[in-house]
């Protein structure tokens, strides 16, 4: 037993040594502090099962698997990684949590750890180590990884995907603008001008988890609105919300028809086909254009910018955080944490970050120096995704209630109902407040 443990430890040490040699080769600009890794001896006979969402861009999976293989070689711990559909991850995490069996690690969605706080491990030691070594965690990473109101880390954020503005430069120029204005009135004028030159904009208003929530949250936040206050009291039926709704009603005629029925992939398809000039999305649109030689011209004409800050002075965007948690039911908590540490270390993390060309932005500040962010200036806007200071259910606590209100599209339906003209802003805000109160009852 001792022999095996020692060998494992040695192997880890050797791996770390080999890895430490690489930065010496001068291929990376990541500033790394010299911090002693937490002493977590890998358990004898450990095996790990990891669940994570399926790739959106190919390198996400291939590089992740390569890094995992490296971990297996270095430690002798067999690791099985399952990439599963985004929609299926939630139910599978729930089953693992309720039955106390299945995967040891789930790399899940931002809210998930907050639903299972008493079923997952305290990862504070690991988070502290990574934070000190890599220049600290970004705001949103910390927000989503710490148990609400405490400094306890219940998750290790691994990446964040935000949805800034994606637009066609030449058409925005033709509409008389040099760049995406930061002011709401000007932004509306831009959209109206784009519509006039037959290049309408398009934002999802259907039941699209990612895109519709991103757009409607932006509308609300940019006008100084928020769904709940710090104490978890619903604050939707306010002037700021009504203003946002009126603005949304003016935005709607500038959009291509059919956005009320749009799902998450719809704006990607419409943008790539050249049917819309502007939308909000992750880097996936640009990635698809860039990788298709036939679309080179469109890719060259595509650029990104933050959505207008409106009245709040900072980009009113959130990010989808890839939040890794370790279940208490695992028999190998140390192996699980070592795996997460291994994946977050520069030798593994930087190639992955680069390979995803900005799809998952880093939660640790040091990685902002990664070459990927200078390799293509057009994706620079994604760099600070995890620095966004808004989250689902802003400003309230991240709880089951915030997750439920988002899943029930409370905010999206409020905007969709007003945009389509089936409700007045006042009625829609009052109804949405009631719907949100169903979840934020206590």
């Amino acid at each position, binding site marked *: 037993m001792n022999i095996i443990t020692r060998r494992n430890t040695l192997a880890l040490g050797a791996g770390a040594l080999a890895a430490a040699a690489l930065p010496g080769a001068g291929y990376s600009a990541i500033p790394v502090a010299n911090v002693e890794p937490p002493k977590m001896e890998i358990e004898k006979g450990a095996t790990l099962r990891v669940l994570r969402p399926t790739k959106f861009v190919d390198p996400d999976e291939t590089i992740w698997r390569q890094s995992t293989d490296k971990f297996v070689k270095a430690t002798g711990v067999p690791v099985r990684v399952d990439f599963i559909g985004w929609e299926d991850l939630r139910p599978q995490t*729930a089953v693992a949590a*309720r039955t106390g069996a299945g995967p040891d690690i789930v790399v899940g969605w931002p809210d998930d750890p907050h639903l299972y*706080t008493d079923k997952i491990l305290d990862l504070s030691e690991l988070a502290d180590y990574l934070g000190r070594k890599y220049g600290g965690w970004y705001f949103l990473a910390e927000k989503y990884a710490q148990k609400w109101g405490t400094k306890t880390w219940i998750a290790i954020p691994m990446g964040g995907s935000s949805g800034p503005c994606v637009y066609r430069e030449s058409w925005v120029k033709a509409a008389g603008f040099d760049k995406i204005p930061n002011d709401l009135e000007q932004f509306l004028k831009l959209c109206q001008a784009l519509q006039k030159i037959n290049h309408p904009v398009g934002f999802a*208003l259907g*039941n699209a988890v990612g895109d519709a929530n991103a757009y409607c949250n932006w509308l609300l936040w940019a006008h100084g609105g928020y769904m709940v206050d710090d104490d978890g009291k619903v604050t939707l039926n306010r002037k700021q919300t009504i203003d946002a709704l009126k603005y949304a009603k003016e935005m709607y005629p500038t959009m291509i*028809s059919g956005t009320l*029925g749009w799902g998450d992939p*719809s704006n990607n398809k419409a943008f790539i086909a050249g049917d819309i000039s502007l939308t909000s999305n992750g880097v996936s649109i640009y990635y698809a254009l860039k990788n298709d030689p036939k679309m080179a011209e469109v890719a060259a004409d595509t650029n990104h910018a933050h959505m207008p800050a409106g009245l709040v002075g900072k980009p009113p965007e959130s990010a989808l955080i890839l939040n890794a948690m370790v279940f208490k039911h695992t028999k190998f908590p140390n192996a699980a944490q070592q795996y997460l540490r291994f994946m977050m270390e520069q030798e593994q993390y930087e190639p992955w970050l680069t390979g995803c060309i900005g799809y998952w932005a880093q939660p640790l500040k040091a990685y902002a120096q990664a070459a990927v962010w200078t390799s293509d200036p057009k994706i620079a806007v994604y760099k600070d995704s995890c620095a966004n200071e808004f989250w689902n259910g802003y400003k309230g606590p991240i709880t089951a209630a915030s997750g439920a209100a988002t899943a*029930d599209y409370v905010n999206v339906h409020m905007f969709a109902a007003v945009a389509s003209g089936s409700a007045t802003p006042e009625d829609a805000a009052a109804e949405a407040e009631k719907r949100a109160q169903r979840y934020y009852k206590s």
Partner: protein
Amino acid sequence: MDVAAPALILRRRPEAGRLARLFDNKTFLICACLTPAIGLLVVFLAYPLGLGVWLAFTDTQIGGGGEYVGIENFVSLAHDPVFLKTVFQTIFYTAVATAGKFALGLWLALLLNHALPFSSIIRAIILLPWIVPTVLSAIAFWWIYDPQFSIISYVLVDRLHLLAHNIDFLGTPWHARFSLIAANIWRGIPFVAISLLAGLQTISPSLYEAAMLDGASPWQRFRFVTAPMLMPILAVVLTFSVLFTFSDFQLVYAITRGGPFDTTQLMATLAFQRGIPGGQLGEGAAIAVAMIPFLVASTLFSYFALSRRKWQQGEANE
């Protein structure tokens, strides 16, 4: 010898073992044969159903336990406009889609019942929509109904120039509802048509001959021979079709997710949305349980319709 032989047999029988005797016992045999089936039913049907009903009376959330809260979930749902809208939509969806499936399915069955060349190949082709996995056909319809890339819009706008704009299939509530109903009808027709065709073929041709000798018109033949003879199977098919349609999930989930603003939400999709992505297991279970009365009602309808055996003889009920 004559006397001894039976005695020997009698003596030998107990030697054959208690097991054999046990299996001779009718009660035991019945129990033994039923156990696997009952076990499967209990584990895979009764237990989940019971658990679902129990969850509906708790405030369970996906992450943790819950407590018994009585009918609180149902009271809260009764005051939830989204839920009430969903119940209306589910009933509407079921009623219109079932009517459509039966009208077209019966028509198709009557056509197929004529002696056609290659009739068995045609019948096989007709089953295709039913054989294709629902999710695949749903994705096909998702493309057909796409606001920008719909093939229907493409033909009407870009090829035939009949319309100036693309049809917004999924972007307005009523368009979206009827688009989903059309997809459901397309999918459901084969089941109805093939079942009714089977029913039609059991009707003896002599009945039609007799009717023709009496000078009955085609409509009268349909009204007084086909329709009554088809009633029993129609009742069964109708029940199944209502059950399938009422609990439909995949089409709506794959095409609209219940959007725009929950106007195409069905009870099954709302139960999932609130229970799993929303994490409110108790409430999701309550929505699913609220479907049970509707499903029981339609099953009872079938039971009573079926018990009227006289339909099969084409006589009036007493």
